[in-house]
């Protein structure tokens, strides 16, 4: 559904990344790994149509993003920013309802159908009990779930998540990752970035390694997340250890 062709992206004239080609299938979860300043966020903004490509194209179902109005892009691709502290004390329900903006004309206010979609999104993430709470007063993990619910309320086909597990505690990280896993089951494609390569094993079908603005590897986690590739990305020695009993793989840096 999303075709990235020979993309160069960045701010102004300065390219952060070049030569990126990637195709995303419906329902696929793609995990983006790369060091700080590696261009993950800039790439996401380009995929969302917030930044114009410096070269190449991003195609949504075959149509160039640059030619689509914002609402059409937002209907298909939803953005989940890092859990942030919003300024004004909106209720969680109101925040989630904002995800319907792409489905409404500029002068319209949300109606019963929109409120129902917001309730479904709250229920899908198991945070219906937070609906009346004030967004600025709930925990970081709850905010992240609320932001995912907001994205889902717009009924998108692709979710772009910028480090959804950053600044979350261990339990909330696991909860958010399991929700991402479920999104794929619902047929919603996900592109997410993370700083923990172990997360790629937990929730991703494919992993893309971004280094120096270039795609250095792309494939299933077991093939791409290796001690060699992680050394290249992060400059540290990493052990990638399968846990046969749990059917999982963990990554841990070798220090000291």
């Amino acid at each position, binding site marked *: 559904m999303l075709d990235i062709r020979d993309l160069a992206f960045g*701010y102004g004239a300065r390219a952060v990344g070049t030569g990126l080609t990637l195709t995303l299938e419906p329902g696929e979860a793609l995990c983006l790994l790369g060091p700080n300043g590696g261009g993950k966020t800039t790439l996401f*903004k380009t995929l*969302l149509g*917030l930044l114009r490509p410096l070269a190449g194209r991003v195609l949504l179902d075959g149509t160039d993003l640059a030619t689509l*109005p*914002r*609402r059409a*892009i*937002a*209907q298909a691709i*939803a*953005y989940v*920013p890092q859990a942030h*502290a*919003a*300024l*004004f*004390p*909106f*209720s969680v*329900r*109101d925040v989630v309802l*904002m*995800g319907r*903006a*792409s489905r*409404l004309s*500029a*002068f*319209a*206010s*949300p109606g019963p159908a929109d409120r129902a979609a917001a309730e479904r999104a709250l229920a899908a993430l198991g945070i*219906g*009990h937070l*609906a*009346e709470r*004030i967004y*600025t*007063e709930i925990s970081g993990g709850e905010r992240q779930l609320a932001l995912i619910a*907001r994205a889902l309320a*717009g009924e998108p086909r692709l979710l772009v998540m910028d480090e959804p597990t950053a600044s979350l505690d261990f339990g909330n990280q696991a909860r958010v990752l399991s929700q991402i896993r479920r999104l794929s089951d619902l047929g919603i494609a996900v592109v997410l970035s993370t700083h923990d390569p172990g997360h790629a094993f937990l929730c991703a079908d494919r992993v893309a390694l971004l280094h120096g603005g270039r795609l250095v590897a792309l494939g299933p986690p077991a093939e791409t997340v290796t001690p060699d590739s992680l050394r290249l990305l992060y400059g540290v020695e990493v052990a990638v250890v399968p846990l046969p009993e749990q059917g999982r793989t963990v990554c841990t840096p070798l220090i000291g």
Partner: protein
Amino acid sequence: MSDSARVAAPARTRLRGLGLGVLAPAALLLLVLVSLGIGRYPVPLADVVSILAAKLLGTKLFGTSAALDPTMQTVVLQVRLPRVLGALVVGAGLAAAGATYQGLFRNPLVSPDILGVSAGASLGAVLGIVLSLPVAAIQGLAFAGGLAAVGTVYAIGFAVRRHDPVLTLVLAGVAVGALLGAAISLLKVLADPYNQLPAITFWLLGSLASATPGDLGAILPAMGLGLAPLVLLRWRMNLMSLGDEEARALGVETRRIRPVLVAGATLVTAAAVSVTGVIGWVGLIVPHVARLLVGPDFRRLLPASLLLGAAYLTAVDLLARTVASIEVPLGILTALVGAPFFLWLLATSRRGWA
């Protein structure tokens, strides 16, 4: 727990709707009637109602003869009514513009002056006073000055095109405001200290003393035109308060909507200050109080700000013409009443930015 929350929610919403839709307008109406009665020449509340009823409906209420007392009629209809109506319109407009600016600029310390509308209007008015122009021309210059200042700021913001368009606008507003302030100071130095300087000082502190029905008629179209986009885009306004990038990601054409909202709020403010002079604090403090009462949803915040702003300025103007034997400029009272209240709010409010 989730069940009780679900039951409580509509009840609370209905309560808020009742307060906003019935109680607040009723309280405002009472305040207006009381304002019309109080002054150097007191008029009993019943007589105020009779006079208004006679004027509006052509019928007599309570069977009293007071409605026919020509002095009372003149005081209520000719002297006080234009002032009270002016306070309602200007207060409502400034508060609505303030609520809009605070949301747009994601900053609760923002007032309608942030993009230089007051400074531009002041320069226009001061220029008119120094040139000894007629009142209508001074008002016209003030109105044009306010719009020109914001237009300049917006053009600079558009030309600079940094990553954060909102921050660029605010900084450009600060710079342009400083330039306009310098020009105003220069004109004050050059002005005739006996005739013009007092008039300038009085204008810069704001007053409804000279508001005429004609003034009101002149600014109402601009007010209506300015309020229209705020009303129409009331839900979109919530998304604008998330910031440019997030709003765009959610499907909002911020590059089209922001200038429309800025233009609307600016039009309202310029129209208001062109008649009354600069009245600070209303646009800053009233949206805060409104947000505290009805929450940040602009669909409720806008009507609440309109009502509260109208009530606040009506009450302050009542003080302005009754506390002392001389007319106290509004700008002094809005700050004198507003600043301590604002500090109290700051100290007691538990919600961030509420």
